[in-house]
């Protein structure tokens, strides 16, 4: 038998039917649902009189729209259209019999944080959600990717997707990370090298000693942004770190079932000599704390760098770089550490987990954010929030001057009231720095949680190593 990648193995284990032309029906083990991309899909089911085929494999949670302020139990904190979407999810979850975590449940949070936290996401599974950051779940050695609303309806109705296989890409991070460099910097470094289309048509396997040394939280951060490099899915082979994270989670198998699962999971690795269509290798030691300067996630530079000259790019990127510089209000040659910011956002499916908050709190402990700075921490789930409070981290944020919020997507995509105003500039731990992403005219610099904390203290983009 020819050697296989982990992606090949998971793919092969989920093909329910293959047509002569290679078009497959891929069986889906877990379907995560949120309020923004699902109402039209449920409406489609109703119109055609279809049911949800596997409600026991379907998990729903509202996250994109929900306010994260402490008064959110008061419905008046939501706009009417947001409230209608959340109420639609409440109703759809009930009518179709899905597992559901409503806003009032302490387990509610960002769908990609709730899934792993509750043990829904396990190695070797296929996981989909109407959200591009579904790639996050690849951290468990599962094949996880985003789908559109028509595909959401297709999975609801049939528990399968019509797919053709992607190509295999290996991204190896060798050596070790330097102090102050985190999983966020690793994933941004990869996008900086591949560009936002470098992974298009591929499933990425992240490997190497740096990846192996990361916690599950760090691995989720890495896989989360696979989509920013164009890959629908990124994944990491499961190992003891993965098993330890899964063991004891509410929906993880128990007893004999756990042992059987473990035996299977241990077969999920890339065989020696398996073929990759594309390979990228990065030395961990070469990665510095990074920031984005422009309006594409590929606009990545070391914090010690300066705003680039558009003329240094090629092709269509020359015009795009100039447009970015104009939009971002920057000057060519300006030191990145001279860029002043007025807002800090720590949270999102990229960096809204406990480890992210620990890293930020370690920088903030005993310090205050700059006068006039608007800084908020939005936990990825109610359980992350509770844990941070128990560990005393929440108090560190509050003492420093941060707002300590309830769980949700919040300012990552600014569908709820947390938005930038035109011209405001934010250091954000989220995943997209597109024009208008955090609010029309708002300017976003993507950074790690530790870098975001450093920026909150100094009021400008800052090399976190100077504060360590």
């Amino acid at each position, binding site marked *: 038998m020819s050697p296989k990648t982990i992606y090949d193995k998971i793919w092969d284990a989920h093909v329910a039917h293959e047509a002569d032309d290679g078009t497959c029906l891929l069986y889906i083990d877990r379907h995560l649902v949120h309020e923004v*991309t699902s109402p039209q899909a449920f409406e489609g089911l109703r119109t055609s009189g279809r049911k949800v085929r596997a409600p026991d494999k379907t998990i729903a949670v509202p996250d994109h729209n929900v306010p994260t302020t402490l008064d959110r139990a008061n419905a008046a904190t939501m706009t009417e259209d947001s409230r209608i979407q959340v109420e639609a999810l409440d109703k759809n979850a009930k009518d179709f019999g899905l597992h559901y975590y409503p806003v009032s449940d302490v387990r509610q949070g960002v769908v990609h944080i709730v899934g792993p936290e509750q043990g829904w996401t396990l190695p070797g599974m296929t996981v989909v959600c109407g*959200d591009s950051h579904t790639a996050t779940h690849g951290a468990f050695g599962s094949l996880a990717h985003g789908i559109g609303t*028509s595909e959401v309806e297709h999975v609801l109705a049939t528990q399968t997707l019509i797919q053709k296989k992607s190509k295999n890409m290996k991204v190896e991070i060798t050596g070790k990370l330097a102090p102050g460099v985190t999983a966020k910097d690793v994933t941004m470094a990869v996008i900086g090298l591949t560009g936002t289309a470098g992974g298009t048509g591929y499933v990425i396997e992240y490997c190497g000693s740096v990846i192996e040394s990361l916690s599950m939280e760090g691995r989720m951060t890495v896989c989360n942004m696979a989509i920013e490099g164009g890959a*629908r899915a990124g994944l990491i082979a499961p190992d003891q770190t993965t098993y330890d994270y899964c063991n004891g989670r509410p929906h993880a198998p128990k007893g004999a079932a756990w042992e*059987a*699962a473990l035996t299977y999971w241990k077969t999920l690795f890339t065989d020696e000599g398996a073929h990759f269509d594309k390979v990228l290798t990065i030395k961990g030691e070469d990665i510095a704390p990074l920031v984005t300067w422009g309006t594409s996630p590929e606009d990545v530079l070391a914090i010690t760098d300066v705003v680039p000259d558009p003329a240094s790019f090629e092709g269509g990127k020359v015009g795009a770089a100039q447009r970015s510089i104009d939009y971002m209000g920057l000057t060519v040659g300006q030191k990145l550490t001279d860029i002043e910011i007025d807002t800090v956002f720590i949270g999102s499916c990229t960096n809204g987990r406990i480890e992210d908050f620990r890293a930020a709190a370690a920088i903030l402990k005993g310090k205050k954010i700059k006068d006039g700075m608007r800084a908020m921490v939005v936990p990825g789930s109610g359980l992350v929030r509770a844990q941070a409070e128990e560990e005393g981290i929440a108090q560190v944020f509050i003492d420093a001057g941060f707002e300590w919020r309830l769980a949700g997507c919040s300012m990552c995509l600014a569908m709820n009231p947390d938005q930038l105003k035109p011209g405001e500039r934010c250091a954000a731990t989220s995943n997209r720095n597109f024009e208008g992403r955090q609010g*029309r005219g708002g300017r976003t610099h993507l950074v790690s949680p530790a870098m975001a904390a450093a920026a909150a203290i100094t009021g400008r983009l800052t090399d976190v190593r100077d504060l360590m």
Partner: protein
Amino acid sequence: MEKFTSLSGIAAPMDLVNIDTDMIIPKQFLKTIKRSGLGVNLFDEMRYNLDGSEISDFVLNQPAYRDASILVAGDNFGCGSSREHAPWAIADFGIRCVISTSFADIFYNNCFKNGILPIVLPEDQRDALMKDAENGANARIEIDLETQTVTGAGGETYHFELDAFKKHCLMNGLDDIGLTMEKVTYIGTFEAATATSRPWV
């Protein structure tokens, strides 16, 4: 789904790389529970001032392109989120075909669910069509899906590739779910086998 067989129309040029789904349809318009009515907000922040008035130099606001049914765009069109609101907005505006050198995977798939044909061409051919499109309303582009060809205003014809199954569905306006339902016994068989081999799932 509306069938797509051929199209002859005005092409609007958008010579910008990495046009993302936040540009195509900003998040404030995702708060709908319907699929329709998003065309008026297509490219909203590029198309309108804060007071709602039109930004006159944006391509779709120019008289020559207000009725465009084709978009010729820079590399990596549709990157970003999985929001199907992006193709819904494009289709609702009246655009049935987007031509670029590359598309983000999820956006590309979403197009086919909504009767939109995304065409991938090499850079030089895309650039030639971009030049054609810049000539305004007189420069019509013709697309024939059966023969997989695009013909520019000057008569030059380019062949494009696409998956045979996707082509079949688009040409016949087929509903994916209906097609899959015909194979439901395979799904049942798979589920039964998994219940034994991976019972924890």
